[in-house]
């Protein structure tokens, strides 16, 4: 029983790692033709009795939300987004073996260096709220990308509002 739980967690971890990786280049290697072989008998998947559902992977859970957004030149988590951070704080306090990386971002209005500092302050603000909510500081790493890694590249509020953001990444 215990073994199964661990392996589920492991799979989750791997999935989380995979999602962190940069996207593959567009000119991806051609897909090899399917190899038709009889499945090895030992590879038959056992019907796994699910003993514990990790709420982190439940798309209906508030934990599926991993980003918080900010007004211009503001680094405090907004009231509307506070339940998200609080939920992650609770999850982290209940899962002391899990770690997160909080990545702060800024829109392009400001110098690159000011925006790096602003993104860091946003990420550190999320960390502070996670710690207040029960997470340990050692579970949380904060970084800033400033305006260097925009999610949306337009020069308008529609893009800027998406780039003023902190992401909580497991």
């Amino acid at each position, binding site marked *: 029983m215990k073994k199964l739980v661990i392996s589920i967690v492991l799979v989750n971890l791997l999935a989380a790692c995979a999602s962190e990786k940069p996207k593959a280049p567009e000119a991806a290697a051609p897909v090899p033709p399917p190899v038709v072989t009889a499945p090895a008998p030992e590879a038959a998947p056992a019907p796994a009795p699910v003993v514990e559902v990790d709420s982190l992977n439940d798309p209906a859970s508030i934990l599926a939300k991993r980003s918080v957004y900010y007004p211009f030149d503001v680094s405090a988590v907004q009231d509307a987004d506070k339940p998200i951070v609080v939920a992650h704080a609770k999850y982290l306090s209940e899962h002391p073996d899990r770690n997160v990386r909080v990545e702060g971002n800024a829109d392009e209005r400001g110098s*690159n*260096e000011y925006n790096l500092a602003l993104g860091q302050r946003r990420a550190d603000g999320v960390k502070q709220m996670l710690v207040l909510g029960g997470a340990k500081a050692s579970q949380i790493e904060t970084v*800033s990308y*400033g305006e260097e890694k925009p999610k949306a590249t337009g020069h308008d509020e529609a893009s800027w509002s998406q780039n003023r953001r902190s992401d909580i990444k497991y």
Partner: protein
Amino acid sequence: MALRPSTELMELLAIRLSPQAGKSLVIRTGLLQSMLGLLLLAQASVASAVLTIEIIGAGEHQIPVAIVPFGGDGKLAQTINEVVTGDLQRSGLFRLVDPAGKSPHELAEVSYPDWQMRGADALAIGTVALQNNGRIEARFRLLDVVKQTELAGQSVSANDDQVRAVGHRVADLIYEKLTGDKGVFSTRIAYVNRQGKKFSLMVADSDGYNEQTVLAQNEPIMSPAWSPDGSHLVYVSFETGHAAIYVQSLYTNQRMVLADFRGSNSAPAWSPDGKQLAVVLTRDGSSQIYLIRPDGSGIRRITFSAAIDTEPNFSPDGQSLLFTSDRGGSAQIYSMPVGGGAEQRITFGEGNNFSPRYSPDGKGFVYAHFSNGKFYIAAQDFQNGQVEILTAGGWEKKPSFAPNGKLILFASEARGRGILATVSSDGRVQQHMFTQSGDAREPVWGPHL
């Protein structure tokens, strides 16, 4: 990539005053430039830049000067003419007089009345040839048309792939003789090029040509800054997943980590004596300014606010710093002694202000001014506090002075691309430099070599 300089190679950019000018002094452009030239030579993979340069506006008091395309090797002469005229125009201080119909190359061929008629105050003539040893030799004279005398006569020699360097040297000599200020056309600039997710740290000639890649990666690069002797760049790289500061030699490409504490390590600035850097760290909380030695030792915090303090820049005498802070509620420029304490806000009024840089004479500073959704390049005088907006406004960021204080380099945007731009310090002449591809960001002008 490490290259050993040899005596012969160090002659690369040696410049001799011509015997005709009655002098036999040999001027070296310096070990560094020679070595840099070497390093750049070795980076054969780098494509030579195709630039489009647009010049906008004209200076108030322009010196009318005629540049006659050099005689001799036609192809070399054409490149030199393009470089010299481009440099002089970009400065905003010269009006180029069309030499149409007249093409003297030797002193004996010059008829001064021809040039007085055309309204030229000065005339540059010369010849260029490819020597048997593969080197370019250009001889040129600068003549005072009004007084009918020779102002300068020089011979410039360089390797055959350094023809643009010959042009910049000729332009520097003309500039110096006619304005009394040191020319900056032979200096270099650094900037970051972003193309999709690829970031490249670039070094190029002052006109944007001859670009060379110092570092290329798929993680952001920010905030390049030159060591005072031009031998090293310090910059911010995200290669380990967060902002850390690296120092890289332009001789050997060797690099080392200067600061890699938790959080962000950024905004490096070298002190004028080269003995320390100001950096911004978040290791103790918010973004604060620290001093650190070039080997990463002796770290010392010098600002103690709960706000963002960033973008430190040393005064030319090394005694003071300008920096950006939002301690007053929005981003503004502040000054402080390098030793700490006595911080003072120095920009006021509408909008936010960023990225301060002292002028080389220390009498004022330039910065990026943001108001009503636009960035402008602005200058402010310390004595009277007067602010001058130098550009029309747009997406204009990160200004830095040429070492002679007469031109300001900044990042701009045109036709949907990040480009490099310069503006004369009186705001009258602007130049846009379109690099081959991608977005040019965060340019910084290097020192005299």
